[in-house]
């Protein structure tokens, strides 16, 4: 029996107050946000609290929102409680100038490579990671290719502007 989304929200608000916010129901999955300094505390609480028990890290990735000043990069954790079969999504945002985010690799061994991948493509600096270097790209690469500032198409082409992709 899955844990009620509302219950998770109440437990988190009890513990962290205003530090957890932007709760929303995203196609049935509870999604929320916290300041990036709090990410480990929130993850640890979700892991340790017996009635929550989010002990399985399903996925970790980043998203780039170039227009959101000061919150250009989001690190997204998908967590799963396998016993009650509940999934949640937890996000922290960081500015693109200072991309320090604490590493979750001490809590989840699975986060090790996922954080390296996120660093590789978005340049999120996971503080405390034991081996934060590129994983899929070559070591000599000096940019972070999945950021939106690197367009896929040749920018001199006018027939492939954003308007044609529904983003006028």
């Amino acid at each position, binding site marked *: 029996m899955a844990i009620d989304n509302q219950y998770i929200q109440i437990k988190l608000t009890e513990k962290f107050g205003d530090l957890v916010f932007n709760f929303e129901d995203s196609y049935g999955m509870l999604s929320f946000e916290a300041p990036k300094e709090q990410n480990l505390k929130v993850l640890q609480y979700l892991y340790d609290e017996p009635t929550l028990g989010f002990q399985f890290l*399903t996925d970790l990735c980043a*998203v780039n929102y170039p227009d959101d000043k000061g919150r250009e990069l989001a690190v997204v954790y998908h967590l799963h409680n*396998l016993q009650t079969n509940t999934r949640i*999504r937890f996000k922290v945002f960081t500015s693109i100038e200072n991309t320090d985010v604490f590493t979750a690799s001490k809590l989840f061994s699975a986060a*090790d*490579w996922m954080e390296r991948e996120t660093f590789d493509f978005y340049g999120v600096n996971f503080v405390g990671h034991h081996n934060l270097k590129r994983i899929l790209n070559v070591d000599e690469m000096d940019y972070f*290719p*999945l950021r939106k500032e690197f367009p*896929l198409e040749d920018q001199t082409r006018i027939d492939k502007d954003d308007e044609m*992709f529904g983003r006028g």
Partner: protein
Amino acid sequence: MTEHHHHITLPDGSIEKQTTTLNVGPTHPATHGVFQNIMELDGERVVSTEQTVGYIHRAFEKLAERRPLYQVTPITDRLNYCSSPINNMGWHLTCEKLLGVETPKRVDYLRVIIMELARISDHLICNSIVGVDTGAYTGFLYVMQYRELIYEIYEEVCGSRLTTNIGRIGGFERNFTNTAFTKLEKFLKEYPKVLKEFEGLFTRNRIFMERTIGGGAISAERALNYGFTGPNLRAAGVDYDVRVHSPYSSYEDFQFDIPVGKTGDNYDRFLVRNQEMWQSLSIIEQAYQKIQAFKGAEAEIYHADVPEYYLPKKEDVYTKMEALIWHFKIIMGEVDMPKGEVYKAVEGGNGELGFYLISDGGRTPFRLHFRRPCFIYYQAYPELIKGGMLSDAIVTMSSLNLIAGELDA
């Protein structure tokens, strides 16, 4: 005149070094894919290994940001290419979740048949490769012709074999032909005997057991912490299966067991995969019976009625105005996706294959992230092989069912 010193310069510490450095891969017959390991060996025992991945990275996530939904499907083919249809279906299910498309039961059952066939072919490859690495080539050669039967069914349904690009949002591109069902019947009839014989070659084979039992073992706790999913997690004793926990495509209508192991070693992984093939066979049989039970117009349904997302038939595009309009709209990206974020997971051949899709309302994904199971569990490889023999490390690698295409994205 300069003085010449004739001596060899050795790196610091190399005289005292007691271990051998061995480079395995990236291309080597024993790695079954593009994987490199730089191992430190003490005699034949593995002290440590440093993995290098990414040799066939193709920037799928970046590519997907400039592709409409239908153009992303061929990308998913190239993740776990031993079971492409599961990836295709997973992607279509993700789109359907975002777009709010409900599929008819018959479509679900047809999808289940294709996905379970893909699971069998995936497990078959993995297990027979484990056989090859322990010195038994026979099994591998023997089962290949039966994987062929599966590929012929794909071919009959979608026209291609390995990178299938099968199905559409809302269903299939065409109805299954009678030939497809005949081929399915042939497979269902012949395969159990073959699987039994395959098991006879390995399961109680003394050499095979001695080579695999105890090798590459992992505890349930460590496996969970490492993010293991699929047969590798179940071999460690955790009965987590996406088909049961978060049923998709009407898996809740089927009766099947989740086989689990105990020790999480190479032998248990082999057994779990074999058991799963039996379960898959049973699921296919159940699905086929359910499909045969449809009568009249219901028996002809092969896609949902969603003209705004489902590509119309080509002959209709040439002859009917409405079909032409929808075709144009879908291809040219006039149909916008709703804004939102979805995470959808399916039980892939080697674990939970997840799609995290963020749509900003444009015609292409704003962000698409693939949760690739073998990328996540391959991290545990150094821990699995530490202290074991080099030859067991090779068996461990193949029994993890690593697929380079999926790992490197």
